[in-house]
């Protein structure tokens, strides 16, 4: 999650105060990702140092609050960020995948039971998200979008567990392949 770029996005419409930005950040993520005010100000200082934003003492309001506005360089940076896909070419070091792969090597452990523990837990999490979405989504579009993202992410993990379960079951029924494994590992290359 790029707090830096989210703040640039919030400043793209009009200048704002730091506290306003924190509130907007939490609203924009359906209040799922809380953000402390210290992190907001540290990020704003860095953005100002890098020439992406400028600050001004408030003219309308008395007191020390600064108002921040985006610069032209900030707009270019924001536009580039929005249109650059995140790097997803390399598989992440996924803890759940590692647990299942490790279970295969531990004597006396049923990998199917390990898979089932995680499957059940993930579906329970999905039930909680579906209830929350059911209660809130009609009133809060942002929360509905975040809820969808989380449900699809968990869904994909459960589907991987299902596929792994079936693959391991098939493998247990088939004789092991005696051919040596190929040494070449393909790397994904994507145009960015």
């Amino acid at each position, binding site marked *: *999650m790029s707090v830096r770029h989210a703040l640039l996005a919030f400043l793209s419409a009009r200048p704002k105060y730091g506290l306003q930005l924190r509130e907007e950040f939490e609203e924009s993520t359906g209040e*799922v*990702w*809380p*953000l402390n005010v210290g992190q907001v100000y540290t990020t704003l200082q860095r953005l100002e140092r890098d020439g992406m934003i400028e600050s001004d003492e408030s003219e309308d309001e008395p007191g020390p609050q600064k108002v921040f506005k985006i610069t032209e360089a900030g707009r270019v940076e924001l536009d580039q960020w929005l249109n650059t896909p995140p790097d997803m070419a390399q598989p992440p070091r996924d803890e759940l995948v590692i647990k299942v792969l490790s279970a295969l090597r531990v004597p006396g452990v049923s990998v*199917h*039971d*390990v898979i*089932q*523990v*995680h*499957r*059940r*837990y*993930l*579906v*329970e*999490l*999905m*039930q*909680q*998200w*579906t209830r*929350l979405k*059911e209660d809130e989504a009609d009133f809060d579009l942002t929360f509905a979008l975040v809820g969808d993202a*989380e*449900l*699809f992410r*968990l*869904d994909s993990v*459960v*589907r991987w567990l*299902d596929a792994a*379960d*079936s693959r391991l079951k098939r493998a247990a029924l088939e004789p092991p392949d005696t051919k040596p494994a190929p040494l070449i590992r393909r790397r994904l290359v994507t145009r960015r």
Partner: protein
Amino acid sequence: MSLLELHQVSKFYGEGETAVRALYEMDLSVDEGQFVAVMGPSGSGKSTLLTIAGSLEEPSSGEVYVGGAALSRMGRNDKARLRRRAIGYVFQDFNLLPGLSAAENVALPLELDGVPSRRALQIGCSTLERLALADRAGHYPDQLSGGERQRVAIARALVGERRLLLADEPSGALDSRNGEAVMRIIFDACRSGVGAVVVTHDPHLASWADRVVFLRDGRVANAPDAVAGASAGRPLASPG
């Protein structure tokens, strides 16, 4: 009250060494207003569970109770009456009759049960209205979208006094938006007291249920509970 109970239900196909075990000593209880999803890989016994619960097939051993009545003590006619009056089925491929309008399809189980056709049609139309399909009552199945056809099929399954809904992959042929709409209708029906058993391989859709039962090789998949830890039981992720 328990609408559906399975006690130690087993089902074998074939005999001797070639017998295939589809279900083994299965226990399941579904109360009024409860939404149960059944998940499991192909061949795990999900569909067999549904056909036995709906009295379309008999178990090799064990007992099934629908509304407190044991199916093994019922004759063919009693079971047929039970299926018409107490149980609604929903299939993946909708199974609507192409020559009947949406309202006529919904009214059909009532007519088969002896309700005069005009009255059956009135009830059919009001059931469609409850599912926001009033403007589709006169349409034929080929004039409806996939999502609308499945909603009509659910209306047909819920029409009359039926309190037990059995659905086999009801959203399998639908896109995610229509699949979610179908699950929402079943969810709402359960809030009004219907008990539902929905077989699905789709975790997203199973997450609508109050309870999820996992089947594996004809049995409920038992595995130790997740170890309570930093990540377990927390509904919302934080940026960390």
